[in-house]
């Protein structure tokens, strides 16, 4: 597996595995992250896998860069180019109430695509999405990719408040805001599920490398599952 590294801080390096967004590449990075976690254990304080990179934070008091890179090289030397992804086959289903009351940009996305509201819902929920990265905010999963006709650029002016659970589109990416926050994505619906709960054994509902499918639900089911309007 080809990779190079770049120093990115006093105690961080970023491994680069490729230059373009590609599920196979991101899966390779997931495997690399698992292998490094297994082989280097507590020497890595933190790791952030993303689309084409893996950021590693190490203990600068107890480690030095040269020996760390040597051990990373060894750990990754035996990693196959292709392999089974532990997360594969693990499709997380997320119920979503697609409606202008929960997704105020739903009709704008439809109008831009020249589709009806129902067609947008059908197309968005027919796709199986891949979790490319978790980041930006706790439990925020970057999912891709939405069908080309639904791709919509970010809002010119971000909203000051997007409620927790709201589903949005930005270009070809789609994501759910885990917590109430400001946001510039086009909002098309909301899930009653809790994406991030620090009290759970696994705080983040979604993990990088998983697959996700959205199941459209009606207002009654949304409310019955604890959804807020």
């Amino acid at each position, binding site marked *: 597996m080809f990779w190079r590294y770049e120093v990115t*801080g006093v105690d961080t390096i970023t491994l680069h595995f490729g230059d373009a967004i590609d599920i196979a590449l991101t899966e390779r990075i997931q495997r690399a992250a698992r292998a490094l976690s297994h082989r280097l254990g507590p020497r890595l304080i*933190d790791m952030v896998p*993303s689309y084409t990179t*893996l950021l590693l934070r190490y203990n600068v008091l107890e480690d030095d860069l040269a020996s760390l890179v040597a051990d990373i090289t060894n750990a990754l030397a035996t990693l196959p180019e292709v392999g089974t992804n532990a997360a594969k086959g693990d499709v997380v289903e997320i119920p979503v109430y697609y409606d202008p009351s929960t997704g105020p940009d739903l009709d704008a996305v439809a109008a831009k695509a020249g589709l009806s509201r129902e067609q947008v819902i059908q197309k968005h929920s027919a796709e199986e999405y891949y979790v490319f*990265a978790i980041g930006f905010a706790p439990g925020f999963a970057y999912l891709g990719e939405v069908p080309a006709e639904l791709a919509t650029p970010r809002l010119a002016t971000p909203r000051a408040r997007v409620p927790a659970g709201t589903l949005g589109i930005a270009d070809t990416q789609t994501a759910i805001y885990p917590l109430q926050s400001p946001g510039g994505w086009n909002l098309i619906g909301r899930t009653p599920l809790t994406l991030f709960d620090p009290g759970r054994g696994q705080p983040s509902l979604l993990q990088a490398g998983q697959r996700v499918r959205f199941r459209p639900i009606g207002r009654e089911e949304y409310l019955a599952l604890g959804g807020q309007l």
Partner: protein
Amino acid sequence: MSTQPGLTFTKPGFLSLLQDGGRQGVMHLGLATGGAMDRNAWAWANRLLDNPFGTPALEITFGGVEFTSHLATQIAITGAEVQCRVNGESRPLWSVINIQAGDRIALSAPKVGIRNYLAVLGGFQVAPGLGNSCATFTREGLGGLNQDGRPLQEGDHLPCHADSARVLNRKVSERWRPDYKEELVLSVIPCAQIDRFPASVLDTFFNNPYTLTRQTDRMGARLKGPALEPLGERLISEGTSLGAIQVPADGQPIVLLNDRQTIGGYPKLGAVTPRSLDALAQRTPGTTLRFRPVTLHEAQIEERQFLSFFTATGSQR
């Protein structure tokens, strides 16, 4: 008043947050490290009391705090230049202060610097949350006294150990105390995407003053100065490092701090060293600063010195 001994805050101040060394092993969840913004002042407050490195202390921004102690204990206050009064009598900063049950302690607004650290003998007794840390993260509603990310509120009670062994009445030597009025030159490790920027941009960046703006918080320091011509493309989003210097489309650099977003797509010129971030954390908006390049080697030596000093014997238990 709680039955557990501790400190009750009658004035919580503008922004007072329980902070420690920050979270570990949670960045893959999208959760930033957090922790004390001025690690140096925070670490000294704990060191004075023989509290181990990593012990939670109260990070008080812009002073204006009053509290009553319900136990006899010792405290230490470091950081910004404030008036500290115990029952109306002045007490020194950067020193161990003996406290009796019923004492009222008041901190004024700072004259120089912006953040103080209040540590108590044995440390505040707060359950750690995610990442083995109690670091308060207001934006995400995590950490702090009640693990809900709330800053300290009027009437909050911070529990303490009543029976910790006393320490000697000592102070931090003048020569170790930082001068927050000193002209600020931030050390930068030139790294990340710096090679992609033309030499003219680096020349502008390293040879001009930048001003700290009001749009600065625990997430990032936004600077204003001669615009840096941004790279044409956004990067594919990647993990962010503490101190990373982003160059967004308007060419005004942003230094990513403790509560930063964990991934981002702006090209970066390098990373400000942790010791320089300590100094930055005490500067008010409007402060002029400059950047100077240092090697990774120099930066790591400085960081190792800092960590080994504060994690060395005498502060272990």
